[in-house]
């Protein structure tokens, strides 16, 4: 079950012609797919398109009614490969994944798909995870479009434009026999807006029709000599067809006056930021009516030379707004202008930073910089020659005060005790080389744990330690999550280690879900899923590929056990990979699942035991050793109102879910006796209550006796 449910929202997918659709970008994309008569959809979750996968999963009934197939693919490669259904059959298909990492994984299939070409429209919806809030390497998907000849759509970030791009994209794909990439950025995916809907279309040709009438065509298989023909076909037929389609259908847009000495060319996704900059400079009104000519590339690959040259006619300067690097578009435009012998000032990365997101301020500064040199007369007087330095405003400097707050393990996270145990083993056996992987467990690299030196990609943690062949004195450790394990880790990491007789310790962090991406089910998930096959144990898979040394830890919160298993794995004389599967349910998902049930049970008068932890502030000495082995948001500090005590003491706040990590760590690390657990028994039996009263009576009597004696003690 995913972290967020769209059960309610997906009902909007049923609305018909002329009705207004309101919601997030990803929901609008789903509706657009249905309006386009898509035959199958799939993908692999990851921000910012995780919710698109969740929406599709929650919309399975509606998809089913329309005869649309939904698959939760095992990886981006599997998703891209699924588009093979559109190679021979006139079925429209769409898959989605995050980029650039997902596109990296998918690129083998995408190359093959692009080589042979498609019959039905094939679309990859790319969630471009770039800029603020990104969780990955900063690269552009643009290079993939160029190398494989995939058309890259980058619509303006509003719902009507995104929906239109889906519709245009399928037609473009079919008109050019080429798969298309639809790029949506982080904020576009989550932008809330509205558009006027159309009726959903059943696919004219379904996957079932294809199975009933199988087709093949050797010329479409990417193997020489056909592959040579494909390359020629790409440049001689598909590319010109794309240019023609994009021009004729006016996929790119022009705004503002036809004349003007300057103009701005921009990626569609940059449109709102450019307009906001112009609005602030008094060059556009609130509806985006601009006084500066804009050429908006809703398709950023291929570029349309003629369109661009027409836009440049009679202009003395043009600004290219292209986020990220390399600046492929600006470079291409430079070459186009040079070849056409057009003399004009082409600006871009001279006024914009080469690297990094074009935030509101960057955009304003860039556009202002361009106008200052190329058209100062357009600028308001105070910007042309400011009386005071705009940057000279006196904002209070808090850089030394405000602490950084990077993401980390959630309250009660079952991965925390795994790394606490690793930390304790490290103290005992010395530091080891640790290869990390992609997933929530990568938070281990940050304080307080600071474990893990590299991350080479999803499911590649153990693979990235392959060069190191250790023994019982210096054995390296690698981490892999259950998500990465099933994504490609079983073959690339575990199989690889077995085959190469690697002597490393592999810790599989199994939290029952693809947790970092929002809690989607995977093969080893423990829950029953109505449409997917779950409950396949990781240990069985690992043994299946030939690992002899396998240990299953069923409660990661048992730090002592975790510690001893790690210790054994690191010191055993046995050769070959040592695999520890450390399993406990993702606390975020567990709470979401259990909390309502527990509340109901208590309400219904059932006996329920709820644990939580506390710290005795008089026992705690304020050393914070416990926090250096935790980092739990609910284990925090409190400044005492006691002049005898200098340092803040540990304190567990009301968000504690009683996972047990605090007590286990205090015990395993022999920290201090401050921690205690309180089990609250709700709706106890009458017998339990009576026993409790007796117990309290006796304890109270003893306590009073001691107080009385103490008052009388001493000879002073």
């Amino acid at each position, binding site marked *: 079950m995913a972290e967020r449910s769209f059960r309610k929202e997906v009902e909007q997918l049923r609305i018909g012609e002329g009705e207004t659709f309101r919601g997030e970008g990803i929901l609008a994309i789903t509706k657009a797919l249905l309006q386009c008569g898509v035959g199958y959809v799939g993908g692999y979750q990851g*921000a*910012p398109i995780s919710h698109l996968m969740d929406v599709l999963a929650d919309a399975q009934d509606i998809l089913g009614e329309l005869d649309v197939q939904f698959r939760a693919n095992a990886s981006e490669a599997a998703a891209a490969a699924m588009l093979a259904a559109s190679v021979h059959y006139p079925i429209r298909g769409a898959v989605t994944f995050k980029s650039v990492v997902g596109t990296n994984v998918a690129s083998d299939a995408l190359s093959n798909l692009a080589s042979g070409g498609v019959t039905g429209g094939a679309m990859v919806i790319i969630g471009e995870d770039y800029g603020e809030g990104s969780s990955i390497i900063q690269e552009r998907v643009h290079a993939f479009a160029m190398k494989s000849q995939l058309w890259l759509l980058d619509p303006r970030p*509003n719902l009507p434009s995104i929906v239109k791009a889906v519709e245009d994209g399928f037609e473009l794909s079919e008109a050019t026999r080429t798969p298309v990439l639809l790029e949506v950025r982080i*904020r576009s*995916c*989550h932008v*809330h807006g509205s558009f006027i809907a159309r009726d959903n279309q059943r696919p004219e040709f379904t996957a079932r029709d294809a199975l009933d009438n199988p087709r093949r065509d050797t010329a479409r298989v990417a193997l020489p000599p056909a592959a040579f023909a494909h390359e020629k076909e790409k440049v001689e037929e598909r590319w010109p067809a794309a240019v023609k389609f994009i021009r004729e259908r006016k996929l790119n847009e022009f705004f503002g006056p036809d004349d*003007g000495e300057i103009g701005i060319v921009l990626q569609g996704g940059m449109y709102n930021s450019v307009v906001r900059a112009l609005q*602030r*400079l008094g*060059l*556009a009104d*609130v*509806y*985006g009516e601009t*006084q500066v000519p804009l050429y908006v590339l809703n398709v950023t690959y291929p570029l349309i030379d003629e369109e661009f040259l027409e836009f440049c006619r009679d202009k003395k300067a043009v600004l290219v707004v292209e986020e990220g690097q390399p600046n492929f578009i600006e470079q291409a435009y430079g070459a186009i202008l040079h070849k056409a012998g057009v003399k004009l000032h082409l600006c871009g990365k001279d006024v914009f930073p080469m690297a990094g997101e074009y935030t*509101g301020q960057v955009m*304003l500064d860039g556009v202002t910089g361009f106008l200052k040199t190329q058209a100062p*007369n357009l600028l308001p*007087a105070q910007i042309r020659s400011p009386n005071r330095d705009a940057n000279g405003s006196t904002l*209070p400097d*808090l*850089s030394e*005060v*405000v602490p950084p707050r990077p*993401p*980390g393990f*959630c309250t009660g996270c079952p991965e925390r005790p795994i790394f606490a145990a690793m930390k304790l083993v490290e103290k005992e056996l010395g530091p080891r080389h640790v290869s990390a992987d992609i997933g929530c467990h990568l*938070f281990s690299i940050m304080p307080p744990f600071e474990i893990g030196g590299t991350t080479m990609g999803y499911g590649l943690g153990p693979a990235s330690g392959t060069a190191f062949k250790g023994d019982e004195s210096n054995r390296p450790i690698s981490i892999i999550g259950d998500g990465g394990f099933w994504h490609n880790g079983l073959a690339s990491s575990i199989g690889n280690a077995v085959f190469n007789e690697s002597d490393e310790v592999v810790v599989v962090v199994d939290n029952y879900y693809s947790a970092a991406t929002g809690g989607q089910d995977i093969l080893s998930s423990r829950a029953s899923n109505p449409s997917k096959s779950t409950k396949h144990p990781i240990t069985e898979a690992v043994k299946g590929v030939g690992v002899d040394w396998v240990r299953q830890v069923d409660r990661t919160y048992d730090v002592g056990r975790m510690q001893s298993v790690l210790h054994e794995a690191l010191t055993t004389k046995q050769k070959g990979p040592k695999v520890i599967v450390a399993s406990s349910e993702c606390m975020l998902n567990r709470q979401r699942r259990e909390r309502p049930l527990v509340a109901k049970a208590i309400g219904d008068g059932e006996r329920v035991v709820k644990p939580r932890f506390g710290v*005795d502030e008089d*026992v705690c000495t304020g*050393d914070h*050793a416990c926090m250096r082995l935790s980092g739990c948001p609910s284990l*925090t*500090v409190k*400044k005492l109102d006691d*002049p005898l*005590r*200098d*340092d*803040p003491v540990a304190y567990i706040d009301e968000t504690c879910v009683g996972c047990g990590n605090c*007590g286990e760590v*205090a*015990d395993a690390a*022999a920290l*201090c*006796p401050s921690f205690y*657990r309180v089990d*609250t*028994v709700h709706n106890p039996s009458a017998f339990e209550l009576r026993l*409790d009263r007796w117990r309290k009576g006796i*304890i*109270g009597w*003893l*306590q009073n006796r*001691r107080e009385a004696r103490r008052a009388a*003690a*001493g*000879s*002073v």
Partner: protein
Amino acid sequence: MNIALPAESARGHGRPDPRLEQVIKLAVLAVGGQGGGVLTSWIVDLAERNGFAVQATSVAGVAQRTGATIYYVEMLANAERQPVFSLAPTPGDVDILIAAELMEAGRAIMRGFVTPDRTALIASAHRAYATAEKIVPGDALADRDAVREAMDASARTVVAFDMQQYAVRYGTVISASLFGALAASGTLPFPQKAFEEIIETSGRGAQASMRAFRAAAFTTVHGDGDKAAKPPQPGTASRREFPKVLAERIARLPDSIQDMARRGLEKVVGFQDADYGAEYLDHLDAVAGQDRAVGGEDRGFELTLAAAKHIANAMAYDDVIRVADIKTAFRRLREVEGAGGAGEQSVLKVTEYFHPSAKELCSMLPVGLGRAIEARPGLYARIDRFMNRGRRVRSNGLGGFLLLYAVAGMRRFRRRLLRHEVESVHLEAWLEAALGHARTNYPLAVQMLNCRRLIKGYSDTHARGLSKFDKVMAAAGSIADREDAADWVERLITSALADEQGEALDGALKTIGSFADTA
């Protein structure tokens, strides 16, 4: 200029569209898990139901796993068609900034989202401490006052109070209180009723949300001045009556010392008994006498003040008896049961996590026996193998309580036990070393007393603290003839508390070593 460029004369007047000023730009800075997404969707609903054109964006993903994250909304009344809104806030261009935590308000100010000409800042003044603040062995809590001052200096208007308290009180999330503060702040052109309608239809938990909403709205209007002035709460173990004789002795100490001395005395008497309290006062009287003799009066009796504090802490050392005593105290069990949320119809089971070792056992034995075992490594190791493991004790169950009660009862023999002997010797040596400098270098003597702060924790942590203490005391002695020795020792104490392994301390010690050699 217009004459020279006729083509441009109709354009580029450089005056922003006045409608642009009517766009309300609202940003929410929250920590993952604070309900920033819910708050944003409420604001969107509110704007839409009141006929505004609205756009909201967020950055989802791993940033929401306990990290700082940002949501952004723009809205416009009476739009003829869809305006072009921005997808992200820009410095200097935010009308309403909602911060779900104090340091997030600071972060917003740092990022330029709060400016005096336009920004209404609505911030919860509570703290959710960041990992960086928590993992330092000393006190690394960020300076709240600096942020509060910056808030007043940066914002057009400020609404700031602890909004988390209502979320906790009514069992909901801070998004509800923030929505209440937003409603009552009057920064959005909608009546409070319109806000309440959104909450009423918000589904599960609507009632709790409404309570937190109303409480925060009320405080926004009426303030929470009285809450700030809550009385100090002394620790649970330190509330003890002590005999009049001792009280009279406190009255004879310098005025500025009496409060600290009273607290110290409470702690020491609570730790052992009135006789032990008298011993504490003996120490203190001796220091005070010396302080007067070296002209401490002019220095506000700083030496005696430091002694009053640290001698109490040193005498009330953290031994097994003290822990057992605290765990079985009447007040403590009552407070724990209160915090567990025990109603009439529930039973509480309290479990303690202990991990005793041979060292703890020896420290609990009579001096001779304890030393004898410590002197026999083989025996010691055998005992440790038996002792050294985690033990969970049900402290409010009969068995567990009696066990701890019995251990706490060993107080009677405490002064004959090995630990007490070790602590007493240590105390005497420390006082002698520090006070030896009182006449020649008064500030140094004060700082050497303050070194006691470095000793804390149990087992390994305690050992590490002791070693840091020894290093700093030794260094202090080696530079005693320097005028700035006290400053250096203060710096050493700070660096000793900066990290666990003492890397900062070792660095600072190297510096001192270098000039101690050359001197």
